[in-house]
């Protein structure tokens, strides 16, 4: 398993070097400056344990000499009328300008009259694909040891369009929308990602035997894109088969691309396979090459401020962000350091079964770089 990771990393590094000369234009609308110039990135520390783990990330990046300058933004205390939520217009502009961001856990304040924070980010930045690389962490034993897959989920339409209404009393209808444009977009990104990271297979997950027109359209778009990448094996798997195969033998899958609802369920299932949301990295891709990496776990208000939080999810998400920026060298070093620290088992936070504090864990990672 570790050798597979090393092989993948080596291949992706090669691809990164070879493909940087001709990148796909729609995903790289920025000119990559040389390493001496700093790349600006937006940082949303978030609530609860957010600030502590964001501090860990900053420390690790400093130790690894990553050429990133952080622009920190916090959730406001009142509703900004321009965004109709607690996120300020300035923070959204910052992400649009920098094209890269890292987001910690945010707790949506209860109440009416404003949009949820995640929904605001998604709509304003047009984040259409959610990418979750799931791989078993060597040294942290779960019931599954050979997981190495990536789930790519369409994030804007599908069953989550939010279009429901009551027809008559006791009868409710909910609309599921699939468009050619959105399906093509996410399929393009899935194949591009597979190629850029040296992945060999892309599987489209669907239920087209029952929902023939909607998932049928999604599949048609995936097939169209698959033809442009003949070196990548493309297959289609019905979702119930996929669930069964995932829990029996997750090594069968490589890259999974799916519409919104199936993506939600399958990506959480895969997170469960490797140990939970506290260890899973995630990255949202938007139009114009925007990448917002985020930690998908909650803000854990009960351990906030006590130096007990596990920064792994945010660190690995930051690594995903670095890979998007093609800083593969730094990404590999940080990823190796994190995996080695967890594998050694000497410094582990409470949720992994250890007793270390956040700061001790971070320091152990820095030592390993």
């Amino acid at each position: 398993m570790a050798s597979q990771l090393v092989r993948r990393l080596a291949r992706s590094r090669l691809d990164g070097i070879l493909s940087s000369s001709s990148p796909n234009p729609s995903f790289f609308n920025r000119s990559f400056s040389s390493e001496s110039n700093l790349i600006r990135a937006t940082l949303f520390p978030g609530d609860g344990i957010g600030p502590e783990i964001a501090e860990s990330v900053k420390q690790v990046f400093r130790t690894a000499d990553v050429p990133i300058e952080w622009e920190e933004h916090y959730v406001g205390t009142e509703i900004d009328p321009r965004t109709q939520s607690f996120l300020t217009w300035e923070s959204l502009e910052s992400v649009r300008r920098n094209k890269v961001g890292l987001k910690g856990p945010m707790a949506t304040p209860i109440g009416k009259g404003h949009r949820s924070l995640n929904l605001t980010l998604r709509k304003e930045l047009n984040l259409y694909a959610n990418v979750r690389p799931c791989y078993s962490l060597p040294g942290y034993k779960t019931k599954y040891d050979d997981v190495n897959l990536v789930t790519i989920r369409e994030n804007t339409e599908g069953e989550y369009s939010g279009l429901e209404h009551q027809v008559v009393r006791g009868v409710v209808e909910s609309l599921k929308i699939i468009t050619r444009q959105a399906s093509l977009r996410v399929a393009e990104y899935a194949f591009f990602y597979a190629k850029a990271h040296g992945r060999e297979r892309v599987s489209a997950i669907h239920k087209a035997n029952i929902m023939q027109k909607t998932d049928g359209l999604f599949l048609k778009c995936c097939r169209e894109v698959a033809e442009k990448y003949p070196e990548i094996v493309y297959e289609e798997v019905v979702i119930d088969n996929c669930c069964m195969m995932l829990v029996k033998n997750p090594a069968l899958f490589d890259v999974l691309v799916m519409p919104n609802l199936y993506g939600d369920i399958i990506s959480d299932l895969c997170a469960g396979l490797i140990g939970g949301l506290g260890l899973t990295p995630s990255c949202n891709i938007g139009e114009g090459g925007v990448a917002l990496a985020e930690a998908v776990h909650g803000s854990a208000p009960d351990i906030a401020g006590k130096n007990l939080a596990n920064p792994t999810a945010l660190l690995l998400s930051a690594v995903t962000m670095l890979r998007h920026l093609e800083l593969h060298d730094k990404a590999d070093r940080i990823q190796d350091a994190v995996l080695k620290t967890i594998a050694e088992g000497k410094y582990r936070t409470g949720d992994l079964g250890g007793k270390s504090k956040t700061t001790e864990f971070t320091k152990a990672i820095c030592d390993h770089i």
Partner: protein
Amino acid sequence: MTPRTLPILKRILSSPTTATRSVTYMPRPGDGNPRPVTLIPGDGVGPLVTGAVEQIMEAMHAPVYFQKYEVHGDAKSVPPEVIDSIKKNKVCLKGGLKTPVGGGVSSLNVLLRKELDLYASLVHCFNLQGLPTRHQDVDIVVIRENTEGEYSGLEHEVVPGVVESLKVITKFCSERIAKYAFEYSYLNNRKKVTAVHKANIMKLADGQFLESCREVASKYPSIQYSEMIVDNCSMQLVSKPEQFDVMVTPNLYGNLVSNTAAGIAGGTGVMPGGNVGADHAIFEQGASAGNVGNENLLEQKAANPVALLLSSAMMLRHLQFPSFADRLETAVKRVISEGKYRTKDLGGDSTTQEVVDAVISNLN
């Protein structure tokens, strides 16, 4: 080990004479007359596994006789004589019907359920003695609404490139599936019912489903009721499945949850299940009933008959022949626990016929 497998295990380990029962089942005069059951072999490996059931029923001299009807998954609708037969016999055993993907033909599995209004689909996922899996202590029953929800089949193209699909949830259907789930738990001495939903996003639709479940739950105070969001549920299923007992879900989530639960307990080749409505019942392989295997499996005749055999045991109990059901179940479980005759999906290399012969020889 769950408390229910212990007495069965004791029986298996004790001397292989006639199965002992503590208190006998007293039938009504005439209950022993042979009952007709509609049999639909289906496509792919369907005929192979239904043939297995026929053989074993003969060997046991069970008081059922089968009326066979050929139906294939690419037909436009189920032939009316089949529907009439099921309406007359009230019980049917069926192999899988293969639905062409994206081919413009609705799934016959779904049509059959809608036509006969079989609104509850039940899949029982449990660890089998002798079959090693990553998870232990699994004993989950997934009860899934079978007629509406995402499988309404109401799709249309709004403009070229934009397709809409309607998900319909009604109070009527949600209530009756919730009632069935709680009644099932009550009659089978189950302690917990978990409703699986996504009401944080689909507030009205899944909200309606949850409301119905809560109403019914208040009438069964001795059964513990809880709710769980479907993505969290999938995560819990793969990490801590022992916390689940009975799960009640709308149509699509039920499909995913039952397949996940079947996968963690040993695979869809061994999990029994059935569809039941107010008047009729159809028994088939538990999860993934539309999966009819591939040509390879058909050629080698190596399909796993265990799921359909256990489903036919469920059918025998439904027909009130408990002794035959127990004998069949004991024999199948003994074959699995011995481990000598297992088909490919369980890690062995026997053919269907070998497994059938082993079960027949283990019948007492």
